[in-house]
């Protein structure tokens, strides 16, 4: 087991783009090697050691590597971007694009996450013990597919456009979500235990389950009997008719 501990020396105003911070990239590296890894800061690149105090315990393969951020990193973006294995734990808030395009491994965030959490994620797991901002598990601007696999669990609320253009995988939100969750999605499963507004517009495929209240249910859904999931019976709607969709929207 290799554990790499980071703590921010001083709160930064200009965001740090930490797409190089992944277990894949840290496995088997010493403290000095990790400190020398470059990250974008403004329009230039700086070594990680400039910003963080780094502690390394042990040395192991990527899958047995754990990265721990102690404290708030709310101006550090792209942590765990593209990671394929291992674990990242963030004990504080985190900035945008955390887990962007991740393929495997696990990210646990004990705080809030800014927008684009797990966008275009292909595999692995993100557990957010806090609330998320916009575009969780969605696609980059213009892409037809956002999240394609893996699981995002949010033990809190999320804001608008959750799971936009989602094509696979699973998102679970225990709290409420904002406007237009699952907009234009084409696969995958979204479970919202709280409330939602205008869910699943332009859905072509996939399943959306909403256990709380819905504001502004779209008229472009056809009711089609009931469906039982894990012992709970829901009203079943199929659509979005406007998009010729065959998606399933289950509500209470």
């Amino acid at each position, binding site marked *: 087991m290799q554990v790499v501990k980071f703590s921010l020396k001083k709160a930064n105003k200009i965001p740090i783009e930490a797409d190089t911070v992944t277990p894949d990239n840290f496995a088997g590296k010493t403290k000095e090697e990790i400190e020398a890894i470059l990250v974008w800061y403004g329009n230039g690149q700086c070594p990680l050691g400039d910003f963080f105090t780094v502690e390394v315990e042990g040395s192991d393969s990527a899958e047995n590597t754990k990265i721990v951020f102690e404290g708030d990193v709310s101006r550090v973006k792209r942590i765990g971007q593209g990671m394929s294995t291992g674990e990242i734990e963030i004990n504080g808030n985190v900035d945008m694009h955390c887990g962007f395009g991740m393929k495997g491994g696990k990210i646990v965030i004990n705080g809030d996450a800014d927008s684009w959490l797990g966008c275009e994620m292909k595999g692995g797991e993100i557990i957010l013990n806090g609330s998320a901002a916009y575009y969780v598990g969605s696609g*980059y601007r*213009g*892409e037809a597919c956002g999240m394609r696999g893996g699981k995002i669990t949010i033990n809190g609320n999320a804001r608008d456009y959750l799971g936009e253009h989602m094509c696979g995988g699973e998102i679970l939100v225990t709290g409420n979500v904002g406007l237009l969750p699952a907009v234009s999605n084409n696969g995958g499963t979204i479970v919202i235990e709280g409330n939602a507004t205008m869910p699943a517009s332009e859905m072509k495929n996939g399943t959306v389950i909403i256990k709380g209240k819905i504001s502004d249910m779209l008229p472009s859904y056809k009711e089609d009997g009931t469906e039982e999931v894990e012992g709970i019976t829901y009203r079943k709607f199929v659509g979005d008719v406007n998009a*010729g969709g065959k998606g399933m929207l289950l509500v209470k």
Partner: protein
Amino acid sequence: MRMSEILIKNANVCDPAQGINCETMDLCIRDGKIVESVSESAKVIDAAGRLTMAGGFDGHTHSAGKINVGRFMNPNDARRTLVPGLSGPEAMTEKTRAQVGYNTPNTYAIGYRYAKLGYTTICEAAIPMLAARHTHEEFKEIPILDKMGLSLFGSNWQVMEYIRDKEPEKLAAYVAWGLKASRGYGVKIVNAGGGEAWGWGKNVSGLYDPVPNFDVTPAEILMGLAEANEKLQLPHSVHVHCNNLGKPGNYETTIETMKMFEKVKPVVDRQALHVTHVQFNAYAGTSWRDFETGAPMVADYLNGANHLTFDLGQVIFGPAVTMTADGPVEYANSRMLHEKWSNQDIELEDASGVVPLSYSPKSFINAVQWAIGIELALLVEDPWKIMFTTDSPNGGSFVNYPEAFTYLMSAKKREQVISGFGKMALDRMVLPGLDRELSFYELAIMTRSMQSKMYSRPEKGNLKVGSDADVAIYDIITSDIDPSVEHEKVKQAFSGAAYTLKDGKVVVKDGKIEATPMGRTYWVNAKVPADIDSAMNKDTDIKFKKYYTVSKSNYMVEDSYLPNPVEISTEGEF
């Protein structure tokens, strides 16, 4: 001023304009031109026996104007890195600015990437005159390359009225005025009459279908503009995107259009007609169910005809962005493919649309489309009639040209691609039966030499004494390579020229940008007798007063938009 002299030694020259087929010789350059000899103080470039051609000339590409709509519709295109080194984000360097994109790269990337492929001249395929200022603004920001553009006339109210009223002289005067207003190089006709019909949600179904409210047919528009084109002695013939593009069975309309031009007598030593992206216009069958190649029929006609040239519009598998003044086609595309759609109304002049799509070898339609482009290139015997294009980015981005060259040069490479097709696709094409493989000489004709005559630019596309010193040296020793087998090597060599020289200046070395000089913009100023010109201007004054959203004085592209203009003057014959 000190003369700048370059001696390119041991160049394996392939220059079809002079009939030179891969012969090793020296090339002399002085002050940006090819010359007989240079002094001993000339800077020496050792080509070391590598393949040397004139700079490439892409005579039909969408690189300024509508491409910008493609850019903002496809922000994700900026991330695409499908062709390493020629696509995707690249940070700025000391010599180059930042680059992004694949099908719709930023302007700087367009210049750099064409230059890396050994291309030095491009022709923007469609300038809506009303938006010409924007086209030239983009031209200004495309480095290295020489540029020209074709102005759209095919659905223009004034054009159709003059044709209906049988006023050929005023029509010619209007064309001359339009070229000057938009600083265009030639006459482009897209789905003649269809752009106007599209304003009413309709289309024209063929050459003899009247345009709503104008009582003229596409055939009359084509013939009328061809006559005006010759009256003005323009350097390029009319450049035609045929009616019924993209529809099964359209090869008949295409051949009919080509036949109609047999009676047009060009007054300049060039073709009477250029038909563009014929791949999209060589479809047989009656619907997408029984869709099949119409290339053999079109090629059969082309082999017997000597009055025209055409370009391929080759399809490249993967994402593409269709952009055309053919508004109704783009509507059909977006509905059929459930894709994003941009539609524009160019007021009195034309329509236009942009739809992104993706060509997949698994789709039998796309597979047959891919085959048709190659079939045309192989079935038409005379390469001097053929310009190589992908109608970038309609059939695919120009950065795939090296890949596409290998389709033409290697039957093995084609087999490799064809092996991924389903039976249905194979039944609908004739490509698997074709074993012709093009030589470097034939490729040079299609990518640079024929363009010289086609656009009446004698200083382009060849290495004759007096021509522009635009030279591409590729890392290929022609005597040591069998392009049929070593197609990967060929592709690699064409993907990054060993040297590209623009006006005698090294702009690319070993596939890297060395310098980014500003290219020229060619435009045509056709002289028209003053009385006809003023009569025509009275008519257009009314158009501007009554219908246009801009005034006439604000319509004209001013000199300041062309930092490096080359005015081609012609005398109209009235």
